[in-house]
């Protein structure tokens, strides 16, 4: 595990000691090299996990998330180059340091064995993200967004700390590798109801669950592009990952405690998809689309069947790549017209045809076109929820239709039709932007050929 942590830590002296004209090149190249080494994690055993030490382990659930995290850092650095052009070198280096720090905390979160260590790292990821949102965001609303983001997550996760300490006191250990074999059935009592709620609410807020999702549109919209990318691609999946881990300790209470949250998520995915149809702000549309996809993941994790877990894992990886790519595309629009309104830059296909190709691919994967992994994830979730209760097929089908509707709405509004005259002189696409989009799309398409690596531990 140190083979990932130490190079990532060393990225910080690398940026601070680089010459001013080499900071982006050094950090992007070296983070890309580190992301290649993350593939070594895929050498998983049959039933066990890869246990690096007493502190770190990785199994088939955390491996794809780790690879995604480490893949995303060079992409974030590539995406941020333009909006930081006019800043002083010190601020650029500070920005990169924040991203590297966030990366470090994320790596340690996904591989933590001890659940208190996981909690500390989980909370620690909030700090660099908050700094990135509030310092480098573009509008004044970023302060409000940072506040919402911080306090929603903190309020949800403080009970988690109490619950973890309680489990440590009663069970004796919080080492996850021991706990998964030692977990006793949780009897039914009021205090255990609150224990269940305390454990799960942190991750529900993070995912986010529909009723607690208010922080997400604010934070995603006000964050700079690197902040949006890491929020959408990784930080939301922290919630899913945490839920998948902690539900092992909470059986059989989850069978009935999960009902209100399943209902909220089933209804919420339709509501947020419908909100997407009425959005004028491009980033806001993508943010609500994230809520909708994550609602599917919440339903899948809460019904706790093998297929739904496979679907949840696949959907998390697929959504990470797709959503991050959509934010990069929205940012390429924003950098040209300095507005997030969709209709201000429309008809882009005639002006930037290659970027239109990326828009098309991203929208197609967002609406879960076969044979992408988005579809595989959604299909597994739909099938398992159908066997859980037949009526959910109506809601899931409606959600897929509305998802297709708003994805195509976004594509058609930004790409098709006659372009407005005031965007006649926008800059052509930079190679950096095309590289960014292709580095998002390539793993997505390659994974469609071999999806078994992202199907999680139950495959």
């Amino acid at each position, binding site marked *: 595990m140190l083979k990932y942590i130490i190079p990532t830590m060393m990225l910080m002296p690398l940026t601070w000691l680089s010459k001013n*004209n080499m900071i*982006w*090149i050094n950090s992007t190249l070296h983070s*890309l090299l580190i992301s*290649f080494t993350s*593939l070594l994690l*895929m*050498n*998983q*055993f*049959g*039933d066990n996990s890869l246990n690096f030490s007493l502190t770190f382990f990785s199994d*088939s659930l955390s491996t794809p998330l780790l690879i995604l995290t480490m893949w995303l850092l060079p992409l974030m650095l590539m995406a941020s*180059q*333009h909006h930081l*052009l006019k800043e002083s070198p010190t601020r650029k280096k500070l920005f990169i340091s924040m991203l590297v720090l966030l990366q470090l905390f994320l790596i340690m979160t996904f591989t933590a064995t001890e659940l208190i260590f996981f909690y500390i790292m989980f909370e620690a990821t909030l700090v660099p993200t908050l700094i990135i949102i509030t310092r480098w965001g573009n509008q004044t609303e970023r302060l409000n967004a940072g506040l919402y983001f911080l306090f929603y997550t903190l309020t949800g996760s403080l009970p988690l700390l109490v619950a973890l300490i309680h489990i440590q006191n009663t069970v004796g250990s919080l080492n996850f590798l021991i706990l998964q074999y030692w977990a006793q059935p949780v*009897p*039914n*009592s*009021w205090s255990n109801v609150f224990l269940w709620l305390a454990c799960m609410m942190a991750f529900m807020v993070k995912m986010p669950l529909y009723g607690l999702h208010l922080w997400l549109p604010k934070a995603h919209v006000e964050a700079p592009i690197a902040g949006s990318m890491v929020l959408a691609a990784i930080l939301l999946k922290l919630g899913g990952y945490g839920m998948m881990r902690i539900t092992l300790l909470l059986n059989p209470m989850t*069978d*009935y405690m999960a009902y209100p949250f399943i209902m909220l998520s089933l209804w919420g995915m339709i509501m947020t998809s419908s909100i997407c149809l009425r959005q004028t702000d491009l980033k806001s549309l993508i943010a609500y689309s994230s809520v909708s996809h994550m609602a599917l993941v919440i339903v899948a994790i809460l*019904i*706790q*069947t*093998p*297929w739904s877990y496979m679907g949840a894992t696949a959907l998390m990886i697929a959504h990470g790549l797709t959503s991050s790519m959509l934010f990069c595309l929205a940012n390429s629009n924003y950098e040209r017209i300095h507005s997030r309104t969709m209709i201000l830059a429309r008809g882009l296909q005639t002006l930037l045809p290659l970027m239109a190709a990326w828009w098309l691919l991203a929208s197609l994967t967002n609406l879960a076109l076969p044979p992408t992994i988005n579809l595989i994830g959604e299909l597994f979730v739909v*099938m*398992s929820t159908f*066997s*859980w*209760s037949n009526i959910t097929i109506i809601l899931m089908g409606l959600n897929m239709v509305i998802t297709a509707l708003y994805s195509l709405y976004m594509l058609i509004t930004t790409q098709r039709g006659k372009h407005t*005259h*005031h965007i*006649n*002189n926008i*800059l*052509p696409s*930079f*190679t*950096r932007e*095309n*590289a960014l989009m*292709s*580095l998002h799309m*390539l793993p997505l398409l*390659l994974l469609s050929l*071999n999806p*078994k*690596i992202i199907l999680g531990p139950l*495959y």
Partner: protein
Amino acid sequence: MAAGMLGLCGRRLLAVVATQGLPAAHVRWESSSSRAVIAPAVIAPSTLAGKRPSEPTLHWQEDPEPEDKNLYENNPDSTVMTRTLLWTSGTCGTFVAYLPDCRMQERARREAERLVKYREAHGLPIMESNCFDPSKIQLPEDEDLLVAKRAIKSTTFSTMPAILPSPQSP
């Protein structure tokens, strides 16, 4: 509208400058995609400011300044990008494709086939319907069961609905 037209005219002027050279200005111009340099014979210190790029060797690695780059020329960055992408996808794809028996699935298939062959040869059923051996399960005595039932009932709260649809797994 006027700003757009002005921008277009400005760009056309830049293209002309790039291909035909500056009309008569005393500034130095360096191409960022080739090694072409247009320099006046005598450079006065006062005219050094202007179109001289500050870091000539590193143009192609950062976003070009929109004021002094002709964006419609051939882009050498694309070569780097294409080669990076192909190398990345090739290496990572080869690595993933040739992972040795990831999560022991191939071994599991071979073991299953071996067991099936063995059981068919010996006339045994291919699989028993019991997951666990029933003889190894020890049920508690009836009195212990009643005590446990009463203990659970006293801790359950009465608002729990008696009939809940049980989750069915696929």
